[in-house]
């Protein structure tokens, strides 16, 4: 018997799916008020990430698998060191109701089951994760550098910062103003475009999404290269092509000359034959 797990793939911010594939997935945006999250023990997984964008109420449940040997465990729910009272909606199931109205209510809630073995499961409640780019953003001198921040809920505002070595400086405070352009195609996305790049623009950039319950951040690393960098492998490949074509051409000329010589030899032999008969 399989116990159904309510997978909140959207809230836990899974892989950024293509626009094409997203249409064909079953509807995965759960409405904000209804939320029940379950972890089944001892099967696992023992951790669950839950994204909360705005104030809501969540029910967190730890369930014991009917086929397990653990009988009548002692259950405690804790957040950090604070114990929370729970209810039992069904046999072998223990639930707590969490009301999230400010950022201090976010965090990790753990249920501990004590019987013959000690088991625990944790629910991590946090603001929605921001999808940035883990690999460095490569751009060329004089070109435009683009950084895109995406998330699955609508933040109240987007902010961009640059790390100038000691502190984070807000982008709108940096001069010249027309060098940086912040665009938003939709509320859940923000783009920073840096025009006329120089080597000095390399470094760390942060995008911050302001949610009701707190900010979410993503980090970018920008590397500005000179145009000479990709030219080196390019010239190497072109040189290889030129060498191969020359070699093949020379081989063709050589083999044609050889065949011509052989052909002349045959011709001479054929001419000699009538003479020899005579």
């Amino acid at each position, binding site marked *: 018997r399989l116990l159904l797990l309510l997978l909140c793939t959207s809230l836990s911010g899974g892989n950024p799916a293509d626009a094409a594939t997203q249409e064909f997935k079953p509807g995965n945006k759960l409405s904000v008020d209804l939320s029940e999250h379950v972890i089944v023990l001892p099967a696992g997984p023992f951790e669950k990430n839950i994204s909360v964008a705005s104030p809501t109420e969540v029910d967190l449940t730890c369930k014991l698998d009917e086929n397990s040997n653990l009988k009548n465990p002692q259950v405690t729910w804790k957040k950090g060191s604070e114990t929370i009272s729970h209810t039992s909606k069904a046999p072998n199931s223990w639930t707590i109701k969490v009301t999230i109205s400010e950022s201090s209510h976010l965090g990790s809630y753990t249920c501990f089951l004590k019987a013959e073995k000690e088991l625990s499961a944790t629910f991590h409640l946090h603001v929605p994760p921001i999808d940035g780019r883990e690999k460095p953003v*490569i751009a060329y001198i004089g070109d435009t550098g683009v950084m895109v921040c995406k998330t699955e809920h609508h933040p109240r505002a987007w902010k961009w910062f640059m790390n100038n070595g000691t502190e984070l400086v807000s982008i709108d405070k940096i001069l010249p103003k027309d060098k940086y352009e912040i665009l938003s195609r939709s509320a859940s996305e923000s783009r920073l475009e840096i025009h006329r790049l120089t080597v000095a623009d390399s470094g760390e950039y942060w995008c911050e999404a302001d949610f009701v319950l707190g900010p979410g951040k993503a980090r970018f690393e920008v590397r500005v290269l000179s145009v000479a960098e990709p030219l080196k492998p390019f010239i190497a*490949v072109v040189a290889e092509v030129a060498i191969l074509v020359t070699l*093949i051409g020379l081989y063709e000329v050589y083999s044609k000359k050889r065949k011509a010589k052989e052909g002349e030899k045959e011709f001479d032999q054929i001419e000699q034959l009538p003479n020899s008969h005579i």
Partner: protein
Amino acid sequence: MASSRRTRHAGPPDGGWGWMIVAGCFLVTICTRAVTRCISIFFVEFQAYFGQDYARTAWIHSIVDCATMLCAPLGSLISNHVSCQVGIMLGGLLASTGLILSSFATSLEHLYLSLGVLTGLGFALCYSPAIAMVGKYFNKRKALAYGIAMSGSGIGTFILAPVVQLLIEQFSWRGALLILGGFVLNLCVCGALMRPISLKEDCKAAPELLEQNYVSETEKQDLKRMSISSPLIKLWPRECLCYCSWKEYDFLLMPGFMVLAVSILFMAYGCSPLFVYLVPYALSVGVSHHQAAFLMSILGVVDIIGNITFGWLTDRRCLKKHRYFCYLFAVGMDGLSCLFLPVLQSFPLLVPFSFTFGYFDGAYVTLIPVVTADAVGTPLLSSALGVVYFLHAIPYLVSPPVAGWLVDTTGSYTASFLLCGFSMIFSSALLCFARLAKKIKRTHLPSLTGNTALKQHIWTNGAIAYSVTAELDQRDVEFLAVDTNSFSKR
């Protein structure tokens, strides 16, 4: 004097320099088909950089594919009239220029032109001439040679995909496109390898063709034909294969080729949406992202295996006479597996589907040039292949959007997959009926008229001599001898 006479081969060499040609064609397939597939890796970068959505970015891939297929006849025209080597080298330079120009792109429209049209045109100039060249060098081991040459697209994708990903991470998409442009320049190396070959069959037919030209002049043919054929007579001493452009496309009216063309239209219509919609379908039935990607990898790898093994298999003596039926069997099996697809709703069931579809997909791709050569003969293979690949273009363009529309309106993939399956089975059935009809016709006609009809056919179009000899296999030498006697009498 002997040095100016080019050595005429009695028949295709089936080896020797032929293997260099196969290597060249293998490289051409890597540089064209594999690079086309790897262009989709750039889409995420283009989307982020230009701020456009997926649909507009995906147009680039459609334009490249479309340009490669639509301009295929142009490629065979150039390689027939000028030289195969010049054609492929020109194509290589064009494609490379297109890629290098697109590394400087400032907008998506710029990319449509440089990466889409220019590169696609360059690829088109290389693809069909290279494949036709393989057919000229091989007879007994033709299918195996084609199998090895066509496996380039699968192996190339396998190797190039991670390499392109690495290049993008190191140099961003601009640098990666620049280096890819350099890589595509290797097409010029392939062009240099394509040593022209002149077969005795082709030269034998041409003097007769010449006589007919003289006859037609006196018979009041239209002026256009005369003006075209007179420079042709001057060119004749230099090039055996220099046919008049109208006569070059005579094979279009051959019933055998017309049936093949129609069946290819349906087959291309059936197979193209599958590669586009397999992953979304798998995701919709609950397969994870990694497993769906794995399905595509299986498809790719088994495609390569199908190319080479099926090529080797159909070269065996027992199967050689039945190559036509092997081709339609492969297409039919693909169609059948498409019909079963809506029933397969889990990952363990989709894996055997990937295996079957991938294997038979590789199988029929290998046999397309072989079956075309059997239908029109080797001298016209280049032009015929140009037309065959041209016929692939429209279904490739039309079929995925139609399938997408079906999915949107019916809400499930069943309708579109059933349509694909039936399309491919119809294509295979059409070929089967055509062959049966041919057999019935032959047994009904009395043998005498049959022979003279064949001879007349040979008179007008020397290419048929080759195709007839291919069918008769053992008796071809005697037949040719009889032929030359009949020619000298006239």
